[in-house]
């Protein structure tokens, strides 16, 4: 990409309407946003129409205008001291943000730990034959187990709290990254390694300066593919009473048949999932600047 791709093109007649001076990059971005709005609008529209025609029970499937209308009322349920069965009292925007932040933080910590430990273990397994023989069979056996199945284990070991939720997210990415790291190191072009050796690089320099950058794009792709799964498991972990978090709210909403709250929380979760994917893409663009956009992690 040229350096000025993000900026509106300068120059041109000063009387030109500003719309015409948008650079192609901005035009593409606006188009994407536009289509996003249309797509969501269509979805909400169909839902609203079904309700309007009396085909939906608003108590069970309240259309968007209903669960978004009474936001202050809904926000009461985000009170930090809220538990299933208690009467909604405090809450408010602050509490909502706190809840969102708790869940997001668990996802972020779990992903970061899972990614870095995964790369470390994957590389160790690749380079140390003894470790490979000792660990690989077990890892291959544990990898296909759904992270959700780990939930009881996590609670037995870590008790109730933040840790089981973080652990579940960790598990979601860890095995995928371990296996992918080994496979990717295997497929680093031999000539890259030859060049490093000829230039006198030590094993350690070769790993940090050649192997890691060359496998990073694919690892990032693996991370992104597992991001949504991470959001799914964190909610499940939170239903078991971590005390805070969107999963806990959904669970409470379900037990109290509060359909508005269910859908409001679902909307928030969807938004967060979308934003975190967007954020990860931005990180990817910054860190993996040499990969053309849309090329993903492909090599």
């Amino acid at each position, binding site marked *: 990409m040229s350096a000025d791709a993000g900026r509106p093109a300068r120059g041109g007649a000063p009387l030109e309407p500003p719309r015409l001076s948008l650079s192609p990059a901005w035009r593409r971005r606006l188009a994407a946003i536009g289509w996003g709005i249309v797509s969501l609008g269509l979805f909400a529209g169909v839902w609203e129409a079904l309700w309007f025609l009396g085909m939906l029970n608003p108590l069970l499937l309240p259309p968007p205008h209903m669960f978004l209308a009474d936001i202050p009322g809904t926000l009461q349920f985000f009170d930090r001291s809220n538990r299933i069965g208690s009467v909604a009292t405090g809450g408010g925007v602050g509490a909502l943000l706190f809840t969102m932040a708790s869940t997001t933080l668990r996802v972020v910590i779990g992903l970061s730990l899972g990614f870095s430990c995964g790369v470390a273990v994957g590389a160790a397994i690749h380079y140390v034959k003894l470790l490979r023989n000792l660990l690989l069979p077990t890892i291959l056996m544990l990898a296909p187990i759904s992270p959700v199945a780990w939930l009881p284990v996590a609670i037995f070991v870590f008790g109730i709290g933040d840790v089981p939720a973080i652990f579940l997210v960790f598990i979601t990415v860890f095995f995928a990254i371990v296996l992918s790291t080994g496979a990717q190191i295997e497929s680093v*072009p031999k*000539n*890259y390694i*030859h*060049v*490093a*050796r*000829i*230039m*006198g*690089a030590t094993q350690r*320099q070769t790993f940090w*300066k*050649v192997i890691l*950058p*060359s496998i*990073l794009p694919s690892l990032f792709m693996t991370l992104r593919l597992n991001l949504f799964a991470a959001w799914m498991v964190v909610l499940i972990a939170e239903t078991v009473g971590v005390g805070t978090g969107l999963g806990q709210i959904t669970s409470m909403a379900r037990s109290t048949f509060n359909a508005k709250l269910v859908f409001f929380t679902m909307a928030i979760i969807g938004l967060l999932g979308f934003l975190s994917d967007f954020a990860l893409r931005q990180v990817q663009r910054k860190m*993996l600047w*040499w990969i053309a956009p849309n090329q993903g992690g492909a090599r």
Partner: protein
Amino acid sequence: MSRPAVSIQSVSKRWTPEGRAPVQALKDLSFDVEPGEFIVLLGPSGCGKSTLLYMIAGLEEVSGGTIACDGEPVTEPSAERGLIFQEASLFPWLTIADNVAFGLSVQHVQPVRRREIAIEMLKRVGLGDMLDKKPDELSGGMRQRAACARALAMRPKVLMMDEPFAALDVQTRARMQDFLLQIWRDSGASILLVTHSIDEAISLADRVVVFTARPGQVKTIVPIDLPRPRQSRDPRYHAYRDMFAELLADEVDRAFAEQEAV
């Protein structure tokens, strides 16, 4: 005369790949490369030319015999012996300048000095205005020049090239050969270049080492006694071309006959 830049004595190489029959790639191979000499290696496919370069570079071990550079036996890779591959193999995550400075960064040269050297080398290969480009923004010929600059930045005494221009089109190839001769004169390094092209061999070499079919041995060593720049219209040039064509045809026939016998 001083010590040879590279001395290859009775070198043999037997590949023993896991789960497959061993391959005798080179057998009892001997020749010397003088300092500043331009050697071209010519031979049928599979006769072990690449294998020889890898062993001189120190990336592979010999199975028998010795390789010495400047009198020192080769035991491991060294920046004094640069190797350039058919694909430029630039690191896509580094800019061109950083690619050229890679070897210097590995050896902990200060960043400012590194950049100075990279700029100097890139100017020398005619890429002075490509410093901060990504490798995939360059054409194939430019990438190969950047790979040259990367090797030259280490001031090698021996520069090895494994079919460096094979992937380029004919016009670019001719320009790259001129460029290479200039680099060679400027740097004073000895060059060992592998090619399949008889014309490339005659245009570039001081001496051409012709290999036999596998197991590779020296069939003959032909000094090219033509003044540079060499003209393909020169009748002596044609004589060389015919000679090499005949030498190679023999070996290619032998290689095929052997394959059919197996």
